[in-house]
């Protein structure tokens, strides 16, 4: 540590005003503050500060995603070997599965970070503002919501689109209207539907030299099956809960998501109001479907409530996407409304609209757009209420 600090101190003049690499000052600044808490003293205003700053917040969220990432790696391998008919038992070949998955997932993570941070650095140098760490979380979320077979160049294109159009045009970290990771996924979903949906992309069935070895293998997700009228074939509740099913890399395991949720709630970074109300919204909609399903003869609607919520990316979206503090509603009442409608819409889209097997992404993006409106009316209602009270008192 001391050596690192010394090296940093020696390098500083190169990047300071008048130094050789003055232009890269902001890049330097980002890396320095990342390694050590800078020794800035507050000049005016509040002098007592919470130890938790943006970097630490972001780091906590990434930590919360680690279970999903690790489980995703293993599951990628597990689904792969399952398709090949090797190591079919859960406990068998742990390291082969994990290793295979890691080799598939890590390149996606690297590409996502390299492209996203690269663009962020460029924009910060142009706009001359300090580099902010907003992308640290998005860069990890993007790989987790991709199917394993997504080509790396698509990850790069989607990330670039999301960072530039989703974030930088609005003014960078903290100013975006839409969740950045979901913008990337939505862009890829509509731009390259064959590589982002269907029953071919969720399970990697090729051998080391890229040849597909399993012909006619259908690796449809549970929701894909349900959307095409095979609701009876979805994975069991336990499998969906633990995540032993096909799907995007990081979202299959509700259990891993809950581990992340525990950390986020414990540290107070994720809003419990949003998480709880999303769950409530999903519960309500699934419950309504349960009631009307038998009458309509719709098998999909009759999936038990809890099972419905464990399927697909509902839990992942609930924990990591809906709670994004920038794009969610800011008022407490607003959070309840915002979360409730995410859950409601996600299940509604998923079950009723056959074009979109999973509704979580679209529901969250839609409510992202609505969040400022919700806040506006919540604030207005509060003002009205207090005006009334003031009028009464007077």
């Amino acid at each position, binding site marked *: 540590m001391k050596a690192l600090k010394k090296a940093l101190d020696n390098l500083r003049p190169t990047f300071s005003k008048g130094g050789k690499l003055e232009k890269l000052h902001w890049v330097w600044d980002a890396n320095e503050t990342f390694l050590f808490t800078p020794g800035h003293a507050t000049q005016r205003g509040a002098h007592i500060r919470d130890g938790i700053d943006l970097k630490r917040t972001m780091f906590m969220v990434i930590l919360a995603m680690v279970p999903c990432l690790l489980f995703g790696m293993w599951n990628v391998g597990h689904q792969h070997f399952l398709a090949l008919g090797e190591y079919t038992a859960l406990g068998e070949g742990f390291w082969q599965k994990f290793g295979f998955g890691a080799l598939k997932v890590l390149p996606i993570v690297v590409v996502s970070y390299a492209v996203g941070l690269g663009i962020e650095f460029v924009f910060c140098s142009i706009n001359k503002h300090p580099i902010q760490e907003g992308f640290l979380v998005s860069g990890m979320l993007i790989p987790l919501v991709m199917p394993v077979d997504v*080509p790396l*160049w*698509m990850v790069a*294109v989607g990330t670039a689109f999301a960072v530039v*159009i989703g974030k930088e*045009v609005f003014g960078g970290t903290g100013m975006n209207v839409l969740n950045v990771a979901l913008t990337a996924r939505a*862009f890829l979903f*509509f*731009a*390259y*539907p*064959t*590589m982002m949906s269907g029953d071919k992309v969720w399970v990697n069935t090729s051998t080391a030299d890229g040849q597909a070895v399993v012909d006619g293998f259908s690796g449809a997700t549970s929701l894909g099956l349900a959307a095409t009228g095979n609701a009876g074939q979805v994975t069991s509740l336990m499998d969906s809960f633990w995540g032993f099913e096909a799907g995007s890399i990081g979202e299959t395991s509700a259990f891993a998501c809950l581990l992340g949720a525990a950390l986020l709630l414990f540290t107070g970074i994720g809003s419990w109001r949003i998480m709880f109300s999303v769950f409530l919204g999903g519960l309500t909609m699934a419950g309504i479907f349960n009631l009307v399903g038998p009458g309509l003869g719709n098998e999909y609607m009759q999936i038990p409530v809890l099972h419905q919520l464990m399927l697909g990316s509902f839990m992942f979206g609930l924990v990591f996407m809906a709670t994004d503090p920038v794009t969610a509603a800011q008022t407490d009442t607003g959070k309840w409304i915002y979360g409730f409608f995410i859950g409601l819409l996600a299940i509604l889209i998923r079950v009723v609209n056959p074009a979109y097997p999973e509704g979580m992404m679209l529901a969250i993006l839609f409510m992202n757009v609505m969040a400022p409106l919700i806040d506006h009316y919540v604030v207005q209602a509060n003002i009205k209420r207090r005006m009334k009270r003031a009028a009464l008192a007077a």
Partner: protein
Amino acid sequence: MSTDTATPAAPKEGLFSKKNRKLITDPLDDNNPITVQVLGICSALAITVKIENALVMSISVLFVLVFGNMAVSALRNLIPSRIRIIAQLVIAAGLVTLVDILLKAYVYDVSKQVGVYVGLIITNCIIMGRFEAYAMGNKVLPSAMDGIGNTLGYAWILVVVAFFRELFGSGTLMGFRVIPESLYSTEGGFYFNNNMMILPPMALVLVGIIIWVQRSRNTKLLEEG
């Protein structure tokens, strides 16, 4: 558009005087109908999937706007102001019908593709906007210039948007294949056409990017606050 006033009793000025040149060049950048006046967005989203369609649309709008501007300008002192919108509509509708018939006669294939939108030129806000804002208060010749200028401003945005949409959406330019077939995944390559480019929302994003670039280069367009 407050500068659009006729100059009565001005000394006779040449066809390419500074003022007339400005009528042409202003809509290209500072007063672009799409990116600054935000008119005609609907057609910019609808017909920019292929460059060819964008060009045909631009030529049609050129015809309608130039002759319409001239007609409205020539009649400007005869049209009672209470019914001026109807009078302008009649002129625009007549010209649009003419264009539609001409397209059907000479470029039938293109007409089939853009036919619906040609009929909708009449609702293109640029047409009525320029009739109302310029032709009603100016002489015939400057009105014609204004028509040419605004169409050019409209056309270049259309073509730029169509360029990117056709290139990335279909892999072609003006119908010629630019991205080789062999790169496509169906032929064993890695490439996919970007389906988002075919969808209208992407045209909106592209227009947005053009506005972004334009405003960072041309700072006088920035609003206060």
